[in-house]
């Protein structure tokens, strides 16, 4: 059976895709059978894995169970890590879901036949609040939420917890941290004090994360043993530990 983990934030450009790609890589490297579903029509994770952002029949047929997710999956360059690619048609995913019965249960139904083949399924979500994100909340065991330490990030966090109350675990972590900025330090201290589910590991702002888009690779290959690589390892360790305390589907 799988654990379903979604990288999610209402805000764009906070490090969701970077986290989804690096964490799923680490999961697979640790021996787990891992799948990443790139739900973002922009296809950033698909691009990073050098895979064509195309699913036969498009997103509509997929969420209506007319095509089987199983047939669309591509192996990445990393053993044990597979990708369900993005497709430009995912930009109409809301409409496609809207016409179905119980739209918010849809993504879980698409994934259900895959549970026995994967130990972890990552969902890389586009930034928004929509039927898609509601459907993600229903499918996911946990949300991995990157938070840039800045003014108002505490409010973002609180909003999110309210939004998914009763749903998946919310595991937030700091992203693009610049420890030299006193604002970052202050916000981090404040959030850690107020929210017990804030993870300990934080991802620093680092060149190698930016380089991912140029090299189309993971930080563990771009700068093995570097700050970002170590931070993602710590984060993954932290996430796994929290999951063991929670449930699985």
């Amino acid at each position: 059976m799988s654990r379903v983990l979604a990288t999610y934030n209402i805000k764009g450009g906070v490090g969701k895709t970077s986290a989804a790609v690096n964490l799923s890589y680490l999961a697979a490297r640790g021996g787990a059978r891992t799948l990443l579903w790139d739900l973002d029509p922009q296809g950033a994770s698909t691009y990073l894995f050098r895979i064509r952002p195309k699913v036969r029949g498009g997103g509509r047929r997929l969420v209506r169970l007319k095509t089987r997710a199983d047939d669309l999956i591509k192996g990445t360059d990393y053993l044990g890590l597979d990708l369900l690619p993005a497709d430009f048609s995912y930009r109409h995913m809301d409409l496609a879901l809207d016409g179905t019965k119980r739209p918010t249960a849809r993504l879980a139904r698409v994934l259900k036949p895959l549970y026995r083949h994967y130990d972890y399924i990552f969902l890389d979500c586009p930034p928004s609040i929509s039927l898609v994100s509601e459907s993600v909340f229903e499918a996911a065991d946990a949300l991995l939420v990157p938070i840039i330490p800045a003014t108002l990030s505490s409010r973002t966090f609180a909003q999110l917890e309210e939004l998914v109350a009763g749903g998946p675990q919310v595991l937030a972590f700091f992203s693009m941290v610049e420890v030299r900025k006193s604002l970052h330090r202050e916000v981090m201290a404040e959030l850690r004090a107020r929210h017990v589910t804030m993870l300990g590991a934080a991802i620093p702002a680092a060149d190698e994360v930016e380089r991912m888009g140029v090299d189309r690779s993971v930080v563990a290959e771009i700068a093995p043993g570097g700050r970002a690589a170590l931070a993602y390892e710590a984060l993954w360790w932290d996430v796994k530990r929290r999951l063991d305390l929670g449930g699985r589907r």
Partner: protein
Amino acid sequence: MASHAHDYLLPARVTLEEAGELLSEHLDLRQGAVSSAERRFYDTFDGLLRAAGLAAAYERGRLSVTDSSSGELRAAAELAEPPERLLAYELPHGPLRGVLEPVVELRALLPLVHLATDVRELGVVDAADKIVVRIVLERPAVIIASGRRIGLAARARLGPVRGYEDELLDVRGTLEAGLGLVEAERTVLDEAVLAAGEQLGGVSSKIDLRLRADQRADAAAAAVLGRLLEVIEANLPGTIADVDSEFLHDFRVAVRRSRAVQRELKGVFPPAQLASHRGELRWLQQVTGPSRDLDVYVLDFDAFRLTVPERFQADLDPLLSVLRGRRLAARRAMVRELRSDRAREAISGWGSFIERLESLPEEGRVDAARPIGELAGERIVKVYRRMLRMGRAIDASSPPEAYHELRKKGKELRYLLELLAAPVFPGEVVKPMVRSLKSLQDVLGRHQDREVQVATLRSLAGEVSALPAGAVALMAMGVLVDWLLQDERAARDEFAAVFTEFASPEQRSLVKDTFR
């Protein structure tokens, strides 16, 4: 889910560097450096993983289980050292245990072969420099016990990448048509096992014999007993070394089956000599009994625990430690006997006796020359009818021994059916009969087990109560005893129904029509 992996043999004497160069003339490749890896393969004594199409290997701190035909990873876990023996049921809950336990159950994974392999990983890439087919060049060598290495043919293993099946076909075409390579017939693992002089698929305890109905009964008996003796001998070392609980179990089943043949076909043996061999096999059965009973107790302990309310479950710990202690003591006593001259002579003497059986004078061996089909049929009818009489005499007031005796007869019938009838009588009669007998035996077995378990618990009460927390343990044991007695009663209640089926008019006439 994944397609097949394909192993191609590389030309002799080509180095992995050269092979990489050769391939790159025909394919767009991303090439890794040559590295070397040690890989230790594991399987159970009876080759359960291979039979399930799986392979388990330890390499660089990781034990992984892969699908043999696709090469697809099924599960893996970090492990600091290569294990000398691995019991799936002792692993932490997780994917690795989830894959292994249903396949191997109680059997230990044991080192099968040890390979040192030069490896070069290549990836065939597309226009985006994305890997679409994996190629692993391997030059394996088997390391045998003396440390000597036996080189195996180098190969190129094509690993499918999901969703790029067409590209795989293209690459196969290039290797076959362009480079003239041919696919290997066996997996590296099988090749290595053979090179190490071992048997593919491990050592089975199954009795798969071809008998003919018109064969002389003494020849058939010798064939069956000879195979049973192989099983006895094959399982003896693992029994003594306590590798896993199945060695002792299989050893005892083979001894018990041999004894059934001794009894049921006694007319094929010279009576005077048979008596002493019967005595020796009975002795082997007896000296291994307590150890097996305690094995079962310890293995089933988790299930026993669940029969008491959750908050008392931990209270049973002192009982478990007493059982473990007894088990070790029983093992020590058993191992002493099994290592004795008497055991060695019992087994080898029995072996030469059955080897000579057919050439012994026929005087006193009244059934020796009769066709086995006829003799086995006759015995089956006799034992079946005997069981009918015994079973009909059983009612709610019968003592436990009545059930026990019926069960013993039932075992005899089962062995007759499995060992002698299955090869010569129609399967459509034998199989359902074994099935209906099995349901009866399950109920009788449960009844008997509960009876014995209650008695065992009583006999341990004194020792348990002397331990710290022993008094509390006794209370929990009381709850357990209550459950065992309830279950024994339940088995009694079920007896009537399963016996009625076993003794049904249809079954009776089937037995009559088939076996005489």
